[in-house]
């Protein structure tokens, strides 16, 4: 029995249609016309305990709706959801006691209170027993380097500091499952690295199941072995990122700096992506021409200063994938 089970999940919102302008607003008060918006059409997946899954998709694809249903805030129009044997929206209080949620855009903490006071209050809200709370808090404070921040009011923290505190707040009750909704949004580079490192440790060392939504492809690259892509409410792919890459954009890139002027290169399966006076960027399909063979062929004929192979950036892979599935922002 998987820890998270989602079957044929669908969510349809009713949105009031309104003609523009004041006249439209007034007639909307009298008689409303409704339009159905299918936020989720048919989503199925399951997650074993200890997995780390990234949920990606363009804006409006249905990521947030899925996370809201999984965390018990929203009730789906149809379909079945079970998390740890509970139906989240049927049994909200029991369910949320066992999960942790971090929203990148929204704070869980009390703005005017010192960080530590917020933690204390959360321990009471979640009914964490005093001794367990103290141990868990000390552990999280050490992992997230929160010691110097504990006495500061939340409003005085930088965004990076606050996110670290948010993570601790979401984990004080020791949940087995963590939902992260765009946890690195707006963070500077060192803070992003710190968040990724922490999530990885939490998943590997403590076995916490993590479901993450993000637009930052480096989050995906650094964290997730498994990626689900959704677009327009449908599940487009579910699997390791590498197989997604292979199916969409298998090509590699070869950057060559020549000792002399860059030559013409004409080989089957190889195209020139960019050229300057003394360098070339080639795109090739390693299934048609293996990398060592291509390098050997070039270095045999030309004097080369430097050479390196690259895979297309993850953003490029995903953008291509959205194009292929016509899944751009609705």
């Amino acid at each position, binding site marked *: 029995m998987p820890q998270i089970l989602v079957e044929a999940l669908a969510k349809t*919102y*009713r949105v009031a249609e309104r003609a523009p302008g004041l006249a439209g607003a007034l007639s909307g008060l009298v008689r409303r016309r409704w339009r159905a918006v299918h936020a989720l059409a048919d989503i199925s997946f399951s997650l074993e305990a200890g997995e780390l899954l990234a949920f990606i998709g363009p804006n409006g694809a249905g990521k947030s*709706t899925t996370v*809201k249903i999984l*965390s*018990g*805030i*929203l*009730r789906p129009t149809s379909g079945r959801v079970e998390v740890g044997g509970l139906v989240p*929206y049927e049994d*909200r*209080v*029991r369910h*949320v*006691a066992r999960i942790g*949620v971090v*929203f990148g855009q*929204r704070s*869980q903490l*009390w*703005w*005017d*209170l010192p960080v530590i*006071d917020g933690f204390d*209050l959360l321990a*009471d*809200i*979640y*009914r964490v027993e005093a001794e367990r709370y103290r141990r868990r808090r000390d552990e999280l404070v050490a992992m997230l380097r929160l010691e110097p921040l504990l006495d500061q*009011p939340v409003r005085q923290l930088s965004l990076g500091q606050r996110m670290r505190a948010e993570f601790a707040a979401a984990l004080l009750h020791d949940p087995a499952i963590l939902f992260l909704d765009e946890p690195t949004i707006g963070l500077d580079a060192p803070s992003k690295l710190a968040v990724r490192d922490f999530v990885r440790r939490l998943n590997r060392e403590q076995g916490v199941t993590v479901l993450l939504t993000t637009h930052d492809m480096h989050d995906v690259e650094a964290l997730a072995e498994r990626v689900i892509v959704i677009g327009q409410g449908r599940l487009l792919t579910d699997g390791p990122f590498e197989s997604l890459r292979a199916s969409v954009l298998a090509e590699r890139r070869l950057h060559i700096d020549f000792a002399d002027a860059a030559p013409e290169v004409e080989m089957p399966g190889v195209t020139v992506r960019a050229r300057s006076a003394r360098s070339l960027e080639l795109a090739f399909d390693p299934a048609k021409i293996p990398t060592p063979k291509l390098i050997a062929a070039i270095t045999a004929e030309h004097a080369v200063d430097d050479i390196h192979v690259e895979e297309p950036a993850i953003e490029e892979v995903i953008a291509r994938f959205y194009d292929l599935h016509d899944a751009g922002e609705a």
Partner: protein
Amino acid sequence: MNALALYGRYVATSLRAQAQYPTATLMLTAGHCAATAIEILCVFALFHRFGSVGGWTFGEAAVFYALVNIMFSLADMLSRGFEVFGADFVRTGAFDRVLLRPRAAALQLAGHEVRLSRLGRLLQASVVLIFATNLVPIAWDASTIAIAVWAVAGGVALFMGLLVLQATLAFWTVDSLEIMNVLTYGGVQAAQYPLNIYAAWFRQVLTFGLPLACVAYYPVLAILGRPDPLGAPDWFLPLAPIAGFAFLALSFVAWRAGMARYSSTGS
């Protein structure tokens, strides 16, 4: 930690947050005290001009005024989360955060913010009550004190019920509806005066619709030891405040319907 103890923690937390801005809190409290004190001056001016209204003296009217304002200020202090629910919770999405915590949403909202500045109105109304007690012959003994406390409890429940209803509407309208202030603040104004000065249909509304008379007019008659000039039986007078609790219970029925709607629309 049980719900009541947790509520206490919420209150303490809220007070500590306000203590971060002591000057602002003090000035707000003083301002609130002064602003509401104007109202009792208006009541005084009215009685000074006409001597008595509907057979009531100023001292008796001041008892109504004081009790109603004590009820309202307590309810207002204890249900701020419901009052600002539409604008501060539904529209901003902060209600999701409430739902992510393993506690009743109503408990979290009640504890959201306990505003010290509301002590201003409470203080002012308490002073008026002491003052009024000196103007009219009230025999403060165990039974009249019990009726007063019971009436205030019923009144707090009634006004909280109104604020819960106001919050419930926000599930449909998203924003907090100012129109509900007609009922809350209008209700405070209406219940400040004895029931028998109003037209019959309005008396019905205040007894059976929005039962403000049940938490103010009838129990105050019992405290003053006067029979109801409108003919309500004597046994009913001290019992009437129970209507406030019934109103609160009904408000929570509506609230639950609103919660169900929220979970299916998410807005």
